[in-house]
């Protein structure tokens, strides 16, 4: 079943066309990789899906409804979550509260319940806390639950960002260079973790990555962007030998 369908998505910054005529269909449960040189428009694509920018043209159909023009927090509520290329945690909040902010998207109490400490507030708060704690345990972050996020080592910060994204209970998960800054061993562990996440939470994933090893092993399908346009699409094996892709990455080839 098709979860996400993007039709003719185009975005311009002033005169620069960051993304132009992007089309894709993502089926439920798929793991799609988006690769391309720096400045190819990959992150802009994520920003367009999640509502940071409003697309100049085109439509982002998520489970049949168009996301273009919706506020970012509504899009999250509909089931799209993301992580960031340069980690963006709530630095002063505890590790647990980072996850609880995300979990709060689905909390079923209002401001009055909170101000008057009504039973519904207490019930929802403690179950939300429980859920967040379980998620932290799942990601082996529970021992840091009360630590401020800014004190977490880099690798764990990446993991916490993933946990936070999952706490919003996404159907579509957008990962922006999840392996950036990790060493080989950490990347291997991340791949294992991602496989487990797919088993347990069953999100559809689109991921941007520069690490070829990572992409080749993880993704079923790849989409290659350069200067905002799609230059290739297909299985990792097909992409690996695509002359256009090689050109984009390595520059003009010597005479063929």
């Amino acid at each position, binding site marked *: 079943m098709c979860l996400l369908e993007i039709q003719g998505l185009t975005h311009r910054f002033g005169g620069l066309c960051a993304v132009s005529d992007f089309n894709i269909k993502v089926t439920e449960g798929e793991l799609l990789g988006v690769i391309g040189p720096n400045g190819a428009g990959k992150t802009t694509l994520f920003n367009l899906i999640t509502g940071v920018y409003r697309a100049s043209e085109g439509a982002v159909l998520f489970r049949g409804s168009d996301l273009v023009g919706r*506020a970012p927090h509504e899009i999250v509520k509909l089931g799209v*979550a993301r992580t960031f290329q340069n980690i*963006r945690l*709530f630095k002063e909040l505890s590790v*647990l*509260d980072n996850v609880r*902010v*995300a979990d709060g998207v689905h*909390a079923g109490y209002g401001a009055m319940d909170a101000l008057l400490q009504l039973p519904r507030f207490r019930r929802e*708060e403690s179950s939300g806390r429980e859920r967040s704690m379980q998620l932290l345990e799942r990601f082996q972050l529970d021992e840091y639950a009360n630590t401020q996020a800014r004190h977490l080592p880099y690798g764990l910060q990446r993991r916490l960002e993933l946990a936070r994204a999952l706490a919003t209970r996404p159907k579509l998960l957008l990962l922006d260079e999840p392996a950036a800054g990790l060493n080989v061993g950490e990347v291997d562990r991340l791949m294992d973790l991602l496989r487990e996440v797919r088993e347990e939470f069953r999100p559809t994933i689109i991921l941007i990555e520069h690490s070829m090893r990572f992409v080749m092993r993880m993704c079923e399908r790849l989409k290659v962007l350069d200067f905002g346009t799609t230059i290739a699409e297909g299985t990792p094996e097909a992409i690996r030998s695509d002359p256009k892709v090689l050109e984009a990455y390595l520059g003009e080839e010597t005479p063929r």
Partner: protein
Amino acid sequence: MSTPKLHAPSHRHRKGMLPALLAGGLAASYLLPYFGVLSPYVQLILISVGVNIILTSSLNLVNGYMGEFSVGHAGFMAVGAYGAAVLSVNVLPYGAAAPWLFPLAIVAGGLAAALLGCVVALLSFKTRGDYLAIVTLAFLMIVKSTLENLDVVGGARGFLGIEKLTTLPWVVAWSVATIWVIRNLVHSRYGRDIQAVRDDEIAANQTGVDTRRAKVLAFSVSSFFAGVAGGLLAHHLQFINPRMFDIAKSTDMLVMVYLGGIGSLGGSILGATIYTLLLEALRPLGAFRMMLMPLMLVLLMLFRPRGIMGMREFSWLLPACDRDAREAAASDVDKDGKA
């Protein structure tokens, strides 16, 4: 992780601590003056401590928990003071006869301030940081000059003839209400949203936080209580004028917030109390007092840039489930230390 069970009994008797403290304080504030134990002078100081606690903890919501730099808190206070005073003097001039009219006037003043708080929150959608600081400053100056030009409320000369309705029990009750409401707000998803906006607005929005709602909530609750404090002050001094609510007043509140520590209600209580008492205690020093206070503030910032409490909180101000977690964590550390 079996420790929480071990600790359970100790929480149970602690759980009632906050309400007990409140009831005790309220009873004491009512009974002690009645039996002549508290001199009028001490009562006076306690009233200003209470008003400052309301101002400081409400300003902390915007400046500490939300991380903005509002310098307009005195403006909200002015709106509350004039609103409540006009209501109790001109509209309901029998405040003393019907005791419920006084809280009504105070609440109305608070609501007027909250309304303006919403307007400032709308402006905060577009600007943040230093520019929002200017917006709040401009707002404060506009309120002050508007009041100076409004002859209905006495213009620059001030507003006279307000009945003395503020008593120590009222101030204690309102301070407690302020702390209770802000504490409940801060330790709910709304409060976490507000803090997430402080740490990273875009990431918050991308994590499902309605950042606009968070801003409106923070500004309106914060300004509501600033208005309440203004109303209490007006009915305490029985006289208000626009000059009382100038930048210096806002600066005073900023000093108390950052002295106590941002993002901590306990810090606000401490900051307001210490600042008010110290100003009073140093009175014999005359002109030196006014030099000593800023000097101490600068020294505090140099050695403790995050204020006295600095993002920490007294455990009795935390909600029960977080309190358990913290004690469990603390006992884990203990165990590790011993092992």
